[in-house]
């Protein structure tokens, strides 16, 4: 049987100006210049890791592993 670990944060994509809203944890934090880049990077990471991108509306996106 295959075992999948789900429901943990795989990466954090934060705007540079929202730097104060994130601090170190288990997941790598990727800083981006603007929201467009944030969308693009989150999309890439979401496709790579089969993770869902969630917008915390404070300039921080978290990617949560789903499968």
């Amino acid at each position, binding site marked *: 049987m295959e075992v999948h670990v789900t429901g943990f944060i795989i990466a954090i994509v934060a705007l540079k100006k929202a730097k104060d809203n994130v601090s170190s944890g288990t997941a790598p934090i990727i800083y981006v210049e603007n929201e467009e880049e944030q969308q693009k990077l989150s999309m890439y990471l979401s496709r790579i890791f089969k*993770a869902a*991108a969630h*917008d915390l509306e404070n300039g921080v*996106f978290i990617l949560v592993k789903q499968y």
Partner: protein
Amino acid sequence: MNISHELYINIVACGIILGTIARFIYLRVDYRQYPTYPQGYMTHLTLGVISAALGAFSVPALIEKQYTAVTFLALAAQQFKGVREIERASLEKMEATELIPRGAAYIENIAKIFEARNYIAMAVAALTSLAVYLSKSVIIGTIMGGLAIYLSRYVMKTAYIRDIAEVLPSKIVFKGPLLCVENVVLADIGLKEGREIIEKFGMAVIIRPKGLDSLISINNLGIRQAILHEAANQLGLKMNIDTPELAPRTMNNSKNGDIIVVMVAMNPDIEAFVEIIKNVPAIETVRKYPSKSRGARKAVN
């Protein structure tokens, strides 16, 4: 008591034939029913013939005072339990390949139905043999067997979602990244691309339970998973394994106990969606009847 050779053959043949017909009727191909392939058909029909034969032979055996025949019926019951195990195991193995799994409750329900159908074949066969023996007439026996098959439909009757709840179409509204239906937040969709697809192809329905019993039943995660599985398998999903934001989801409305179902389908036809959900079986194994409990009735009043 001695049974003449001719009558013996009539008893057994009638029993086996009617019992097998009963099993065959319940083996009708349905979009949701498994098996839908010839091998599965063969397996279940063969087992049906065996169970019919057991039922048919039990009557003349008892008449001739061969009471050990009863132990064979017990053996048959064990065998049919084996059928349930096989069904369960094979469906569970296929779960990993399903984008939206059936869920344990649905699998258990299917497995139980398959077991019960063998008992129906056995009971119909036994009843037919008994009728042939008592009336000494093949025609009366066949009529009795037919009647038994007809009545067995009431025993095997399954309830559907349409029997326990209303299904109403609704609308998806985005509040920022939040996917909302009727002011209930279902998910946080971060990607703009995902939100656009959901707005364009997403469908939402509300399942409104008809009473206390159905409220408790419909809130069960097993039924909700079965609904998602059925809807996803009939309308097709836009979702792939790397686009989890397009996954179908359910959520309960904590204000009134409604269930909200959201799906992004290949064919976004809301009427078809409502129709499909109405026809999902309300899984017997997870249904609860709190209205029969004094405490629960007090809480409602």
